């Protein structure tokens, strides 16, 4: 496999992992929003 394809696949891998982490951060924010808003309401 050529170096370009290999490194492109690696970069895509980095992108996919980063996207997962980003989704995790979105999840954390949504969770915190829910907990804090629920606490305020109760």
């Amino acid at each position, binding site marked *: 496999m050529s*170096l*370009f*394809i*290999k*490194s*492109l696949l*690696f*970069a*895509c*891998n*980095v*992108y996919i*992992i*980063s*996207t997962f*982490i*980003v989704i*995790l*951060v*979105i999840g*954390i*924010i*949504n969770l*915190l*929003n829910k907990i*804090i808003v629920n606490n305020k309401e109760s």
Partner: protein
Amino acid sequence: MESVLRDFISIFPGLEVFSQMTLGTGLTRIFLIFFGFFLCYLGYKNILEPLIMVPMGVGMSMVNAGMLMMPDISNPQVHHIGTMFLNSMLEKPNEIVDAFQVYFLQPIYTLTFSNGLIACLVFIGIGCITELSFFIANPRMSLLLAICAELGSILTFPIAMSMGFTAKQSAAISIIGGADGPMVLFASLQLAKELFVPISIVAYIYLSIVYAGYPYMIKLLIPRHLRGISMEGIEVKEVSSFEKIVFCLVAGTVLCLLFPVAAPLFVSFFLGVIIREAKITRYISVTDEVILSGSTMFLGFTLGCLLSADIVVDPKMLKMIILGFIALFLSGIGGLVGGLIAYRLSNGTINPLLGIAGVSCVPTTAKVAHKCAQEVNSSAYIMMYAMGPCIAGVITTAIITACYVTLIPKSGL
């Protein structure tokens, strides 16, 4: 006549060194002296970012003028061409300690640049001037725009590899696409210390040009009627300081847990935000007026002083200039495509210019988005909304940097 001229030149060591150089290096030095003047002028006229460009231009002009024959630190009998500013090539601890007595900028370079402290200090300052409200109110939209705007950080990697750079060097160059100066410094120090100076110079010069170049890209890619969307229909939920502090603590801890390599950057950014949100006024004034301003000035000045002729004539420099352009160009394209997708998904309520803000470079790209929207529709105030993806861009660039630093040693590339 010739001997009189030679005697006259020998009175001034700077001129004497000039006469001892090769023609190419001498011409490059003259070019850099005038290029420094030019950067200084562009900073003074506010065409490029004055906070970085003025000290960088001053440093660049004067370091290339002030060269003389210096004794070698390890072997004083041997003389070579150098400056009284700093020596970035030293590695042995005893040589570095000796250099502290000779070069006036050496303590700043060794104690703040070579360990990444300067990037962390800038990040504390950026955190302290960052408003997280829109980002926390709309995390999905902000982060998704930001991840689209990381296209340059990803696609530049294989291009750099195929141009002959190693995997670590390619990753350090790719991070220029994240458009975050401190992150580029940090990544190059972690991954390719030997290219730290040229990568940082290329990154900071391009990041200053972003403000002038991205509006043209926007005008080319986004139709006029879409640029003027005012986003009035979107309500921004009020986010309390408590919520922002809790987010910083939790997100910072999770990110440090996942990527300990980038923990200094995460902790610096979130510390700055927490200082701001906790309203500790004494810390806020110190962070903004002393830490951020001081570190930005020394960052620009030291980078300028590092740009001597021998670095510019390195053939790798031209490749890095091309790759830096590709990285920021692709990130801009990715951001705008993300903006158009967000526009479609929101049934036309989101201004696609928000995508360019996802490139990061806080707050420059948000200002670019706002300025371009205002040119079409003077009632379109999108600055507040643009800060969401802009902040998210910092976080996504930190995540991608951390992924590169962690994964490259295991990749076998």
